């Protein structure tokens, strides 16, 4: 009996007696017998913590793509950044971890102020004044942005660049089954969205990604112009680390910014929990999805924080709510605030710059290899796609034997052909470099890749 329950047999008896009952069964007596479980759950007996820990080593040891076994050059929206002990320690404080949504602001100023600081940071990184308190991840953030665009325009057509991460686009399509949005994808040419070929009349939103999922930095003026010309909202999905040095969503004229906040202190975590970043213009405030914290005062006139504009939310507005989000990703938002505090202005710029430097150094070395060819000639930030002339998935497995996680196969990401890629897609690898990668590691990457493709 390994569990966390305080009840002693004597206490159970005492409590039942107080209720005038003589067995725990009686508490469940009003459940129709026909549906009652009589045999108990079809699960093994409970085990002690150390026994479960031993069991879990089966899982951990069967994972080969771990930090201790492989140097990570994979990206695709999820990045291997430095997370210092200090950030883990602070974000792990049990007051943050074991609280819930700050419904009682008088005893929740800790989380509320941390979110307020997070919101400030997201506003600055996005260049847009109205952030929210977090969404699940970038993919569902994009879905919320489309809903917001629909709310603002009452239109259904969503014009989305194929440069937007394939998984985000997939999620948008899934949820469009409910909302009825019409998703129009605009393919890339030489890695850049071919906006000219699309009919954007009556579009609710023009959606682009910066950089796009192939790593390319597109000039966003064209997308913005298209949005303006068609009275659509301009939704920009952007890498928040890039904002350390590259133009913000606001600078490009976006109405809505969405992004993946994982790079700010959250580990790779096999894909979650991550952090959906969201910010918009003041025009859209009343359509904001999820929670938002605002500043106010207490009855003694002290500066205080509280969740606000609650009338938008599902618990009050029900079927007319702007979004159904309730539980969000607060702990990751708090983590991001701490990580950004640790980085500071200078640190964020340096991280962004080093990503670019490392990626360009690796790119230059890779394209020297016979048979390796860049997918695009356009500028890029921290990742880029290359044709290998060999099946990318197979190459990845071979490289793994040398301790290098070589990137992400584009075919695996798009699960199928990709009209945005010239030529074969199966041989395309998306390669990422973060500030954690050393020159030695990059040089070794080149060597290992050469070996894997027999060069």
């Amino acid at each position, binding site marked *: 009996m390994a569990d*966390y*329950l*305080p009840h002693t047999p004597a206490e159970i008896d005492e409590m039942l007696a107080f209720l005038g009952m003589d067995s725990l069964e009686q508490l469940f007596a009003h459940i129709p017998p026909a549906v009652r*479980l009589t045999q108990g*759950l079809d699960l093994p*007996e409970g085990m002690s913590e150390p026994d479960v820990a031993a069991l879990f080593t089966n899982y951990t040891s*069967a*994972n080969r*793509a771990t930090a201790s076994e492989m140097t990570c050059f994979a990206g695709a929206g999820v990045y*291997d950044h*430095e997370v*210092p002990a*200090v950030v883990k320690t602070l974000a792990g404080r049990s007051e*943050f971890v*074991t609280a819930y949504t*700050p*419904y*009682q602001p*008088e*005893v929740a*100023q*800790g*989380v509320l*102020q941390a979110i307020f*600081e997070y919101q*400030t940071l997201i506003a600055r990184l996005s260049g847009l004044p109205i952030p929210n308190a977090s969404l699940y991840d*970038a*993919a569902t953030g994009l879905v919320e942005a489309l809903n917001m665009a629909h709310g603002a325009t009452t239109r259904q057509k969503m014009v989305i660049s194929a440069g937007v991460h394939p998984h985000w686009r*997939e999620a948008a399509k*899934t949820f469009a*089954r*409910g909302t009825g949005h019409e998703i129009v994808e605009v393919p890339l040419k030489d890695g850049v969205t071919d906006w000219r070929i699309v009919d954007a009349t009556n579009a609710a939103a023009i959606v682009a990604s910066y950089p796009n999922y192939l790593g390319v930095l597109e000039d966003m003026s064209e997308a913005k112009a298209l949005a303006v010309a068609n009275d659509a909202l301009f939704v920009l999905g952007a890498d928040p680390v890039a904002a350390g*040095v590259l133009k913000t969503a606001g600078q490009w004229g976006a109405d809505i910014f969405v992004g993946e906040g994982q790079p700010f202190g959250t580990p790779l*975590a*096999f*894909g*979650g*929990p991550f952090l959906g970043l969201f910010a918009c213009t003041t025009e859209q405030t009343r359509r904001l999805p999820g929670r*938002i914290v*605002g500043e*106010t005062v*207490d009855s003694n006139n002290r500066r205080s924080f509280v969740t606000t504009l609650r009338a938008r939310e*599902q618990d009050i507005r029900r*079927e007319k*709510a702007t979004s*159904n989000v*309730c*539980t969000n990703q*607060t702990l*990751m938002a*708090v983590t991001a605030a701490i990580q950004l*505090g640790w980085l*500071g202005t200078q*640190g*964020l710029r340096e991280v962004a710059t080093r990503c670019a430097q*490392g990626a360009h150094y690796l790119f230059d070395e890779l394209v020297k290899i016979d048979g390796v060819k860049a997918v695009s000639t356009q*500028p890029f930030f921290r990742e880029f796609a290359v044709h290998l002339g060999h099946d990318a998935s197979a190459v990845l497995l071979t490289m793994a034997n040398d301790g290098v*996680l070589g990137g992400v196969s584009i075919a*695996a990401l798009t699960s199928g052909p990709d009209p945005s890629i010239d030529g074969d897609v199966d041989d395309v690898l998306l390669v990422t470099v973060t500030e954690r990668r*050393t020159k030695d590691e990059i040089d070794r990457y080149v060597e290992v890749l050469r070996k894997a493709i027999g060069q």
Partner: protein
Amino acid sequence: MTSRALSGGRAASAPLMGHETEPTIFEMSVPGRSAYQLRTTGVPSTALADLIPATHLNGDVVNIAEVSERDLVAHFTRLSHRQFSVDLGMYPLGSCTMKYNPKFCDAVANDPGLNSVHPGSPAELTQGWLELLATLEEKLCAVTGMAAATLQPAAGAAGELTGLLLMRAYHSANGDPRRRILIPDSAHGTNPASVTLGGFEVTTVPSNDRGLVDLKKLKASLDPDVAGIMLTNPNTLGLFEEEITEIAAAVHEVGGLLYYDGANLNAILGAVRPGDMGFDIVHMNLHKTFATPHGGGGPGAGPVAVSQRLVEFLPGPKATRMDDGTFAWVKPPRSIGRVHGWHGNAMVLARALAYIDVHGGDGLTRVAKYAVLNANWLRHRLRATLPAAYDRVCMHECVLTATPLKNAYGVRGLDVAKALLEEGFHSPTVYFPLIVEEALMFEPTETESLQTLEALAEAVERIAQRAIDDPDALHRAPQTTPVSRVDEARAARHLIPTEDAASR
């Protein structure tokens, strides 16, 4: 001093030392200060302008805050001291299942063998993760009595919407598109919101005088345009829908599906399974039932389990056990597609599996029994002070009402909730469900002891006494907390969501 930055080293904002406010990190910022430390990489440090065209550069307009590591630590440590949490004391917030979260499960989630894995790594290199996910899916199906599940939804509400999209896909596949979803009037707000996002219309079903779905009225609402019904069972009043088999039969009869909102699954673990009650779709709030800490509002995880006829529609790809004993990502044949950027909130999923494994079938059954025992004891113990909205055996939570206090002394449920903070307890959920006047929804959970329940009851009694003696003081409560009652109206009237808005 030249710099007007506020001190990062003064602890007056920690309640231990006084009751001042904590400056924001921006107020503490001093240009040129820093905390970050990065690896020495040896990568050529080419100027950015030589790598990226100037049109893309932002001109260094983005500023964060500039603090030392010492001040960073002090700031967030003090903020943590301004925050109530389960680890500090009882948190009987109804519908949220704020139970104790084993530190062991946190340790599992911090294992680099799990959390340093990139989600885009080939399946061949992440077999441990795939097995873990497949195993969790199997165990969640065993708990709910369903055939298969998706682990992708990131929270309960995401699970609801996923479930509704599954309903839609199912009906469409049958060439039988339907528009309406029934929801009891006691339902949580996410239910109707999800219905709208799922492209359906809400039909509200009233509760009867026992706090349960009014079966007659329900039946009257049924017709072939009903896609399904969403129910929580026990419902948000903490009461078991005793006519569930009749409800299921009636809905199924018109071709509708039954959706189980699993937020209250904690009450019925090992006692009854949604599948056995006739539900077709079940979402679980792993962060409630399976003790993932709530993280100040998240993350959670909202897996959705379904009966056989819906399996082919599940989101994907799913981690799947192959015949040769390996695991692969497989997309169900008629999948509605992805509902998450990757594979769901993986670390939350791992925590939940560890929690399930520690408890086992026997332990989970005890969880429900003691949760229900605690709620009933508390309901009964408080009946003279805060009567139950529906006074009979409840499940894992009880909805009480402050109406007598309001009528007699003008003390509202909110006042009671705020006064409880001063007594060392988090408040219950107030004013929910909407159908109960002056509702106070207590969910003690199974991890609280009899002694704690008694202490809570005595605190409520003291508050009731204060309502008689000095009701005005209760309107002003709480006063012993880091801040006193905050002006919520002002926050909404003049939105200040950022430091930059504040200083404008």
